[in-house]
């Protein structure tokens, strides 16, 4: 593991940050989060057109940039930093990742180009209603129906499930776990936007009632491939968390430097200074955790699952504490609707739950390490 970002990575970071500072500033985030769709079409098109972000990990032969998980980490860190409201984690990470890791060649050719061009919003529906985040928990059955398949049941917490053009559904077929495609407008498909704690990330409940579907998974049981897809999604999410946590640290530090009370900047009081210092330590640890997971994903020869467990457990808590401390340091102001601190706080809490909470990841880590 070297942990060294190249000059290309840093250039990518600068480019994405510049774009997001212009197109995903606080006002843009607030506008997007109040809409039902949850994002700005125009920004989405620019992300694809100008920068090719949606196709970051899509192979060049399918119209993507063919880059890897270190680049994805850099991009998502910036998106987490700016609280970008967009169906990116769903489309470019979950759906694209699922197709790259577990899709049939045909499905990849069919779907990935649209993702890369920004025309297709896609998502991965995997959590069965009332069940956990592990793909092994999936019980939904896909039944053969002529040449195609039919799905019935409910998937919960589907990222951008209400707007996705293509929903990739994890369900059990005769060979075990596989991937099925359902398109917007399919018969028996119902999608309900959920009232989320975090307004900046849209979740939907998606119901299928004998809904026609197409099998798009590679052959055989895809449990281990889909596990990897979720580990990679965790890599993406922890990068977002690190970006958000770093931003909270910067907001706190900036405020502590400039807010005067008792004739002094509040950051000159040890109560505030040491809180910021402790935040710095945990943000740095979170970066170590996330980068380690990202580089492990990119190099492909390490223990990705363990790195993901460590990162999801630690980064979730680090972000939550940074966001909570950021409110405290801002005092009454940090608690108002008009200040952005609460947006980070809600994002932090929700990200901690998404894809499994810290305790669950620790339990899995302990099992794999034999603790």
């Amino acid at each position, binding site marked *: 593991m070297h942990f060294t970002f190249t000059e290309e990575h840093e250039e990518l970071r600068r480019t994405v940050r510049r774009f997001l500072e212009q197109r995903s500033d606080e006002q843009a985030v607030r506008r997007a989060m109040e809409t039902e769709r949850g994002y700005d079409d125009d920004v989405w098109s620019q992300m694809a057109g100008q920068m090719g972000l949606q196709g970051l990990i899509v192979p060049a032969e399918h119209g993507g940039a063919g880059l890897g998980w270190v680049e994805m980490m850099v991009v998502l860190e910036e998106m987490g930093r700016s609280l970008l409201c967009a169906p990116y984690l769903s489309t470019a990470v979950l759906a694209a990742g699922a197709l790259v890791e577990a899709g049939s060649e045909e499905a990849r050719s069919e779907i990935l180009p649209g993702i890369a061009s920004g025309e297709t919003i896609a998502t991965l529906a995997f959590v069965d209603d009332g069940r956990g985040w592990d793909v092994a928990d999936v019980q939904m059955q896909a039944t053969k129906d002529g040449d195609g398949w039919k799905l019935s049941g409910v998937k919960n917490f589907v990222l951008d499930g209400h707007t996705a053009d293509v929903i990739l559904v994890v369900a059990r077929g005769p060979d075990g776990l596989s991937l099925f495609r359902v398109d917007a407008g399919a018969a028996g498909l119902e999608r309900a936007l959920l*009232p989320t704690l*975090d307004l900046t990330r849209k979740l939907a409940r998606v119901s299928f009632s004998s809904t026609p579907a197409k099998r798009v998974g590679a052959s055989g049981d895809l449990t281990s491939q889909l596990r990897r897809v979720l580990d990679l999604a965790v890599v993406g999410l922890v990068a977002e968390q690190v970006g958000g946590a770093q931003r909270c640290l910067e907001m706190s530090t900036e405020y502590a430097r400039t807010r*005067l009370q008792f004739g002094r900047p509040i950051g000159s009081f040890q109560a505030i200074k040491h809180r910021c210092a402790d935040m710095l330590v945990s943000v740095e640890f979170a970066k170590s955790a996330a980068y380690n997971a990202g580089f492990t994903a990119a190099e492909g020869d390490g223990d990705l699952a363990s790195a993901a467990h460590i990162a999801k457990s630690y980064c979730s808590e680090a972000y939550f504490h940074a966001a909570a401390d950021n409110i405290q340091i801002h005092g009454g102001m940090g608690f108002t609707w008009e200040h952005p601190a609460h947006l980070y706080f809600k994002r932090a809490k929700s990200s901690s739950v998404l894809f499994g909470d810290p305790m669950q990841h620790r339990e899995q880590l302990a099992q794999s390490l034999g603790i």
Partner: protein
Amino acid sequence: MSMKTMSEAELRERTRALLAEVHPDKVDRTTFRRAQFDHGLAWVRFPEGHGGLGLTANLQQIVNDEIRKNAKTFYEDMAINPIGIGMGGPVVLTHGTEEMKKRLLRPLFTGEEIWCQLFSEPGAGSDVAGLSTRAVRDGDDWIVNGQKVWTTLAHLSKWGMLVARTNPDVPKHEGMSYFLLDMQSPGVEVRPLYQITGEAEFNEIFMTDVRIPGDRILGHEGDGWKVAITTLMNERTSLGGGGGSRGSGPIATLLRLWKNREKAAFTQASEAVMRDRITQLHIECELLRLTGMRAKAGLRSGIPGPEGSVGKLAMAEINKRLWECSLDVMGSSSLLYEAGYELKRPELHGRASRVEEHAKYQFLRSRANSIEGGTSEVMRNILGERVLGLPGEPRVDKNVPWKDIPRGV
């Protein structure tokens, strides 16, 4: 008969006499509370003629018990006019003129005139005494300009307890005065201040060339800080833990959520980890309650211990952890916020919602516990300095004219 020595039996009798004359189940609130005031049963510790009988404060309990026993209707002071009765009354009694007492205390008690407190400013949070709102003499009157914040009930209030700077050329604690501001005065604008929950419990107040008659000053010019301290001392005693029975309050909600938990969402191991965490919170909540009881026992026996100030700090910190734990108990469903974030005034009498929604609301609301009414940082300073006797920090804002102290937004 000397009022100071009125026996409990006599007080009970006097209360029954009030009830015989006007019964709360039969007349409206104003009528009953006016009569209660006139009988000296509003605050028995207040002097005769001002709603009281000159007795010790603890005897008020006798009156309240007697009313509760004999009537279905009982008006909680804190529901009627919390800031007026909790802080306004005492401060008028201590620092007001005879005319003010006559004019203000009765409608304050009845709830005909609601009060609010205008101390905090955007630039003066923990450092309340650093406030910038200016009051300048204009003939007999004062002209006020400035902005206040964190004002509960301002949109319903008749009177605001306003502290403003009347002399910027002296050190900050010496240059303030304390005014009664008629909230209907021209130039007073009240705007709701929305919070993390989407609700606006508080207001921002903008004052532009607001005129206050010269006789609406409490204490003398320059006494503002002293009078404000009287007000705040009455605030502190109304915060902090204690009260309730064992296992009641927030911990009861957490235990109920735990009982209702989605069993399938927990492994045996994660259940054990969670149970230990909940048990720790149960213990801390119980000790918060017991510490509150000790503080009260201390007060009763005349030994005020540090337990009271401890309660405010501990409650804020425990509350936040408790509601965090509640969300963890709810697992994935804590991704949702069923109540939504419609920007609005809070419902006056709370919300009747499912326990899950209540917990989520509290999860967000509790973040303010360590900020409102004194941040946890300020509380630790108070405990360190006033209870443990540790020295203060070097001050850069003492003995310096207020106008020379560095000040930001």
